[in-house]
């Protein structure tokens, strides 16, 4: 069971890394607008496949 003494701190450390990444992305404003990018990605795509094509 002594593996627990390694695994538990390691899992907590891993969790801390993800929390840190989340905090950074939230502070840089990646979650400010959740709706528009979802629509925007569709637009770029259909534009690239040929704007003059009649769908």
């Amino acid at each position: 069971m002594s593996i627990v003494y390694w695994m538990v701190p390691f899992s907590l450390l891993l969790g801390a890394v993800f929390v840190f990444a989340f905090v950074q992305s939230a502070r840089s404003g990646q979650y400010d607008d959740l709706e528009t990018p979802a629509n925007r990605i569709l637009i770029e795509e259909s534009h690239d496949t040929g704007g003059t094509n009649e769908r």
Partner: protein
Amino acid sequence: MSAAHFIAARTAASCIHCGTPTQGEEFCCSGCEAVYRVIGRLGLSEFYSRKAEGVCFKPAKPASSSAKQYASWDVWLLEQDVRRFTVFATGVHCSACLWLIERLPQVAPEIITDARLDLARSIIDIELAPDARASQVGALLDSLGYPSELIVDPGGGEEKLRRENRRQLVDLGIAGALAGNVMLLSIPMYAGLQGTNARLFEWLSGALAIPSFFYCGRSFFRSTGAFLRRGVFSVDVPIFIAMLVAFMLSAVSLIRGRPDLYFDSLTALIFLLLASRYLLARLRQEGLVQSNRLYAKTGAAPYLIGERFEPTLGSELDCDGILRSGSGWFSRSFLTGESAPTLLRAGDAVRAGFFFQGSGGSDRVEIEVTATGANTLIARMIEQIRCMDAQRSRLDHLYERWAKALLMAVTAVALATVGFFWTNGQAWSGIERALALLIVTCPCGFALGVPLLTTLLSRQAVSRGLVIRDVDFLEKIGTINHVCLDKTGTLTRGAPEWVSGRCPARLQPVLSAMAARSCHPFSRAIVAKLAPQTTIVLESFEEKPGIGLSAKFDSKIYALERHSGTAEALSFVVFLEDGREIALLGFQDALQSDARTTVTDLLDRGIGVSVLSGDNRSAVAEVGKSVGLSAECMRSRMLPEDKASAVRALQATGAKVLMVGDGVNDALAMKTADVSLAVYGGLETALKTASAYSTRPGCRSVIESLKLSDEMKRVLRGSFVFSALYNAVSCGFAVSGNMSPLLAAVLMPLSALTVFTYIAFSLRSKA
């Protein structure tokens, strides 16, 4: 794609631009047609294949946009010396709009170099091209059917809001991570782990609960502090007491080596609470963003007090004054809600916001300035409205009253338990049971359920044509017993329509060309009905306010003159060719098709109805008759302040008032009323003031919001019954001493989940 393609592709007769059903015409109005042409000219016709079926907003007015209307943008940009600015665009709603707007830098690079749209908030971030003016951007957006408004944010309110938003999200993320880890560490204990490893896991979960409680849960400390200092009760207080008890009890158990640990329940509770708070805050902000917007109109005052000037035809006055000589026709819609101009004579007061429509006689019209800038009536009115926003009192929420009652009952039972066991000489056992009781019976079902319910109902309201800005709107509207309605624009369509008389087809282009040159409401009605044309050039044109229009074309004199006859609330205009009558055109500000049923439904519900209008007595009486209201319910000739005091008078008799309106003249009354609703097509001030606004024409939205409110009450009552049952059962377990940590850990989140499921399902079944 060609225009012909779209016309061929249409199956039923509906407007190409907005999808409104029409009687065989391609467009429902000239506004839509104008927007369609602009989109085609910019080479953006692909817009129509992208947009969802029939959801495009109808432009509020025939797009007669000019850069002049947006001149205040230039002033502001120059003062600030910036090239990036944000605007709030009305009418953006789907990915086709997003495509259209973000395409603008490519099709109009001489004006805009970058545009980014925030679809959810209808805000466009714009970068201006080096030699362009901001007013050009305004005119461009307007011509595309998105009338926009510059966002001026001197206090940095928006930025503060954004930071607050991010902070809440960070807290939520941390609380979630901590809750998840504590949960994982607790599983071995429930599985029956004993010995040193169990002790390690217990201490670790305790350590993780510390930041969760003290950092993520700090807002609960704050609101409890406010309660202790100022007696402001909120639902946070009982929750905080439960959390504090859970934490202290668990900490004591941890140190004494007992198994009563509630760290997992505590951290999960904090996470769920923060999640629901975040949801509610996002919702509330949609309203806030809009009321933070300021008027960019307070640019430099061009006049000095006491100075005299001559107004230019068709211009909006930007100062208050007194008419010193001559007489003039002024449109006073912001004061009375009526767009038809009235004749003012020497000595009469004029206000900033009036439109000068022409001289009433041959004399020179001269105005002496009495107030400018922030001292004008309109500026003072807006300021007053803004102040009232700040001092609005807190609503005593229904669910908070229930939570209070629940807390008192639980406290009473807890005290009784301690008392009972104390007298039997088992004090410690009594205290333990009372603590378990406090922990499991917490009103968190409400604290979590109410925000969820509000969010879901707001979504539903949008699909029913209602945008809710004040989160408490549905709860407040459920308590009203009196409705005050504005007449023009609310009960009626707000603009006269050409309802009788036909113009021979050969003269329609002439009529249309004449009407297009005038801004009188009747002329606009003609323009809206006839196809716009550009082939005819009038040889001369003259508008005599109060009398009519005259023009020369093809060496004939044409005239449109007011006719003295009136019948059934129709006003007549006669169309003359060389003095010979061609057609008698009848105009009427028609009732909204649902005005009568709305009033009847309101009366059926036992809600009092009165109409507050700035229009004259006979017009108001006429409307009263046709919607079935008695004469004493109809109030005429009311100025904005009168409307507000009428609402106050009603409130003094104990009535809870809902104000429904559409104009600046209703804004003060809207703020005074307990709750307010702006109808479709309303002016921006009304939309900004109201607790909710309607996105569909007509006044049916009043009934819709009452129905939604009933819905909310029904679901709330259901979740209250459930919560009472849950609390009674868990109370039984706790008092009888059967509340093990495992049972508490299962029951607490389970109760919240059940409330969630109940709310989601009971709404879905009705939708």
